[in-house]
């Protein structure tokens, strides 16, 4: 294979660099603005770098004006609770679909495939009414319980468990393991890489979700990061973008760090949404 010509290589970098710069520009501008004092944010002339560093005041204001750390903490609690519940519920079911024979299996599997297609906004109205009658609106549970089942997770883990040799399952049973023990002690450790991809998929989705928290949460102290961002923006109705950008830096940072730290896995997890939609 002949290597590309010098002209092509330069053109490739030129095009891709321009693209990359445009795609990164919002992030760069966000960080730069978060360092600028208010009089440098609104200027007639375009200035890139801050002449006076306002890092401390902007970030202090972002952390004190609204309970930003609280939002981040809520996000962590909600995402962790959803993930743990999802895994507890879906792993046994995925195992049963992959390795056991039972009556009505074909029909049950069809239900899973049907549920797989349902976008989560589709159930909003009845779920909202249900939570209202249970008195659960405006609680953290309202953010967690509706997502305790993931049809996509069942689908994904069933596909994975089918690749586990039956001999391994039989051997564990001969050792006297019950089915539950088998799932948690044999299948779970094997499933860690697949579960990791699912975890990224789930966490990214629920960390970023805005639609559902907007519907069910009205108290600022229960807000997740996206909803909190909106409380912050509405609070900061004026023109002081410095602290607001400091806030968005803090709110986007956790996922971006996760992405930078585990890029391959992260992309794997997020592209699963391609299958889910």
């Amino acid at each position, binding site marked *: 294979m002949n290597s590309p010509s010098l002209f*092509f290589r330069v053109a490739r970098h030129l095009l891709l660099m321009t693209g990359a710069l445009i795609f990164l520009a919002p992030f760069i501008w966000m960080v730069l603005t978060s360092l600028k004092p208010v009089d440098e944010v609104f200027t007639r002339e*375009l200035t890139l770098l801050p002449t006076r560093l306002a890092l401390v005041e902007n970030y202090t204001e972002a952390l004190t004006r609204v309970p930003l750390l609280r939002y981040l903490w809520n996000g962590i609690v909600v995402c962790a609770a959803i993930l743990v519940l999802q895994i507890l519920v879906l792993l046994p079911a995925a195992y049963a679909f992959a390795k056991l024979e039972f009556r009505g299996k074909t029909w049950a599997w069809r239900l899973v495939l049907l549920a797989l297609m349902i976008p989560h906004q589709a159930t909003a109205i009845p779920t909202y009414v249900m939570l209202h009658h249970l008195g659960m609106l405006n609680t953290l549970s309202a953010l967690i319980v509706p997502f305790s089942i993931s049809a996509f997770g069942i689908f994904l883990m069933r596909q994975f468990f089918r690749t586990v040799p039956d001999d391994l399952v039989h051997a564990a049973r001969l050792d006297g393991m019950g089915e539950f023990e088998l799932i948690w002690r044999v299948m779970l450790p094997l499933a860690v890489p697949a579960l990791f991809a699912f975890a990224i998929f789930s966490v990214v989705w629920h960390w970023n979700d805005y639609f559902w928290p907007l519907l069910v949460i009205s108290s600022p102290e229960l807000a997740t990061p*996206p909803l909190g961002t909106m409380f912050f923006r509405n609070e900061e109705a004026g023109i002081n973008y410095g602290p607001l950008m400091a806030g968005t830096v803090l709110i986007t940072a956790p996922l*971006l760090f996760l992405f930078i730290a585990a890029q391959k896995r992260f992309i794997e997890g997020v592209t699963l949404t391609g299958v889910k939609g």
Partner: protein
Amino acid sequence: MRIHPLTTWLLLSPATVLLIVLLLAPVATVAVMSLTDWQFGAATLNWIGLANYAELWSDPVFRKSLANTLLYLVLVTGGAVTIGLGAALLIESDTQLRGFYRTAFFMPVASTLIAMAVVWQFLLHPSAGLVNHLLQWVGLMPQDWLNNRQLALYSLAAIGIWQMSGLALVLFLAGLKSIPQDLRDAGALDGIAHPWERFRRITWPLLGPTTLFVVTVCAIRALQVFDTVHVLTRGGPNKSTEVLLHTIYAEGFSFFRMGYASAMTVVFIAGIFFLTQVQHSTMERKTHYG
């Protein structure tokens, strides 16, 4: 070895119950509610048959919303697929800086859209925004991107493209990887020397199924647009950025006309199901090449 039916039942029942209570029954409820005039908080409801759907058909706001959603879907899917494919081919054609470029284009996918929407609001600010600063710098007229009726939906579509291209890119990179290198080398040996000819005659036909798949993935996501609309324009100015989910949100949760909002939700679900069916058929075709 026989597994006791009770054990199987215990393994399956939590998932089955939740699947029915949280997903399947609510969708069925939406379908039933769409045939009523129920308002949230009302003690009674009337069966009104398909009257909600008839109202949808003649409701100018809903028609506008549907048209906007489709235009947004076409713009964002087209833009993201074009940029994703172009960038994937360029990145893949040489080895230098592959990782950096992929990371740069994927960053928007990995970030919290709501926070970035606030950043975009600032970037598009009529007087202090970076975009207008740059336009003036090259001698063009500044615009009020989000408050101009002619421009607002296109501005939102641009943000949508920015957010989705990275996803299209990584899906295309995976698709390109599955095309055997010797197939392309064979093309070179057969005298298809020009890279563009090689792309047109070898890579592109083999990438066809992947492209269809990426199109449906992007379309499904674009159909679900809500965050940027709610944060940046609230459907305005003058309904010019009203989109399906936002209209459902307004009818159902601001005016509490749950029956009417349910009928809209049924339309939304139908759209998603249709795109999902297209996607599944493309996935089946894809396996023939895989």
